Each structure stands twice: as C-alpha cells, then as structure tokens.
C-alpha cells in the first residue's frame, strides 16, 4: 500500500469515523432484527444455506452478535476484536448473497437497512457491504479507541 494512503488510513480521525459509522450501522440494523426474529428467520431461510433446524438459532443469535460487536466498536472496547467479528459477519453476508445470486434466487437481503439502497441483492447491496467490510478491515488493522485500554491490539502490530 502506498505510504500516503496507509498514513491517511492509519490516522485516528479516519479510524474514529470508520468505527462510528460501522458500529452505528450494525447497532441500527441489529435493533430492527432483534424486534422481529421470526421475520429475520424467514429472510435467512430464503437464502437456503442453513439446514431448516438451524434457521431459528441463527435468527436468535445473529442480531445480538451484530449489536454487541457494533456497540463495542463504537465505545472502543476491544475494537480490533469487534472489528474482526464484524468483518467475519460481512464476509459471510457477501458470500451468502453471492451464492444466492449465482443460484438465481430472487430474494430480499434481509438487511433491515432502508437508508442505503433497496433490500434487493443488487449491485448497491454488494457495494454497500464491500464498503462496510473495508471499514471493518480499517478498524481491524488500525484500531482506535476513545478509551485507552482493552485488548485493542491491532493486526498491524501483531504482524510485526
């Protein structure tokens, strides 16, 4: 990566913006999902990736993972770990959406996020999730925190 880009990405204000946007998005969408897990179960089922017996378990646990990781990221507790958890989720969402499109499933994404494009698995969806994934990776490599402590070790320092 070019030094200037790396320098810009590593600046605390960049990290703070990424953390607040990413964490805020996940807190918002998770809240909508928490209010109606049965509805979320139907969306998850539409992807046809999970065994039907596991759909409800995913609908019950997924919003809480999103909510807790988003909140930790916003507050700045364990930011690198929270970013890693959210990056993992975003990777899973992108892979599931890609598989749905490849298999010709005409389903809605179940994103519960009406302010950023439609609920369809279209180009806007992939761009939106890719941008969020980039933010998660930024927060993972250069974690910043309003607080000073926690295992906020970055992967950058971890890799030497």
């Amino acid at each position: 990566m070019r030094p200037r880009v790396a320098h810009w990405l590593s600046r605390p204000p960049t990290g703070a913006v990424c953390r607040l946007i990413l964490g805020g998005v996940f807190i918002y969408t998770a809240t909508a999902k928490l209010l109606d897990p049965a509805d979320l179960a139907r969306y998850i089922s539409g992807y046809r990736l999970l065994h039907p017996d596991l759909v409800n378990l995913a609908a019950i646990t997924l919003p809480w993972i999103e909510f807790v990781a988003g909140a930790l990221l916003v507050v700045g507790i364990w930011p690198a770990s929270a970013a890693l958890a959210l990056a993992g989720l975003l990777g899973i969402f992108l892979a599931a959406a890609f598989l749905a499109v490849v298999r010709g499933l005409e389903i809605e994404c179940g994103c519960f996020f009406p302010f950023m494009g439609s609920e369809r698995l279209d180009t806007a969806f992939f761009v939106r999730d890719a941008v969020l994934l980039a933010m998660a990776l930024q927060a993972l490599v250069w974690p910043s925190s309003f607080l000073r402590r926690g295992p906020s070790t970055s992967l950058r320092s971890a890799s030497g």
Partner: protein
Amino acid sequence: MALPPNPNRHRNDLGGVILGALAIVLGSAALGIAVNHFSPHRLPIMQQAEGGRLPLPAGLTEISLAQAKAAFDAKKTPFLDARGSERFAAGHIPGAHDLPAAEFEKRFLDLAETLEGAPSVIVYCESTDCGEAVELSARLKEAYQGQILVFADGVKGWTAAGYPVTKGEMP
C-alpha cells in the same frame, strides 16, 4: 533489570484479537439464546415452529395441500408463484402467475386487474422452509384488499402429491 523482548508477544497479540472476537461471538450468542428464552415472542431454537414450518406473520392464513388442491380444482382463486421467473419456468402449478417477491413493484401492475375481482389469492414458493411466499404476502398486503392464503407446502409438496405442474414462462 530490563526484561528482554518477548519473542511470542506478536503471536500473543494476534491470538488476543482472535480470542476476543470469539468471546464476542459466543458471548453474544449466549445472550441471544437467554433473552429468547424469556421473551414472550420466543422462537424454538433448534427447530422451526409448527412441525418444521416457518412461522407466519399476523394477517396471513396458511392452507393445507388438500385446501390448495380444492381451490385449484374450483379454478376461482388465483395462485401466485413467488419463487422467481427461472424456477417458475422450470415447473409451476398450472394457471399460477409468476410474481417474484423481489420484483413486486415492477410486476404487480400486470396482475392488478386479475386480482381485483378475486376475494382471495394463494401464494406459494418451493416448500415449507422457503421464505419468498411470506415476503410476497407481506408486500401484497399493502396493495391487495382480499384474503391472502399461504400454501406452505409449495411446489415440492404439490409435486410429491402427484399433482400436475406446468413448465414454461407465463404467457
């Protein structure tokens, strides 16, 4: 006396990040299960409600295979296939209309006249664990005044019972 640098520090740091992420995931999942257990809208964890069927939202009525067949024979109630055009063409209930949930806005107007005089419609997708029929029903509720019936067994149940299916796109 100054301690020498710990050669395992970086590995421990990376391990700490991964362990922290695992703790977040597992802790949150446990929290979700606990909250669900005490929730008035509790979902069964390892199985779907009502014998493997997805729970229907309020305002929708599920019909059985026999009821769907009776409606099919009476030829009075329109069938709406929510699965998407490709799977519709691969095999659908004869006389059904292709109305994918994801293309509702674009395609509904074509069917508005057909649905206008019908007191009820039957919506279906692939099987009991598909979600498109419920998605379509949710959208239909905003535009259609009649009763929405969800045939949860879908094409899979219909075919398994030996009932006819038609291939090809909607005329």
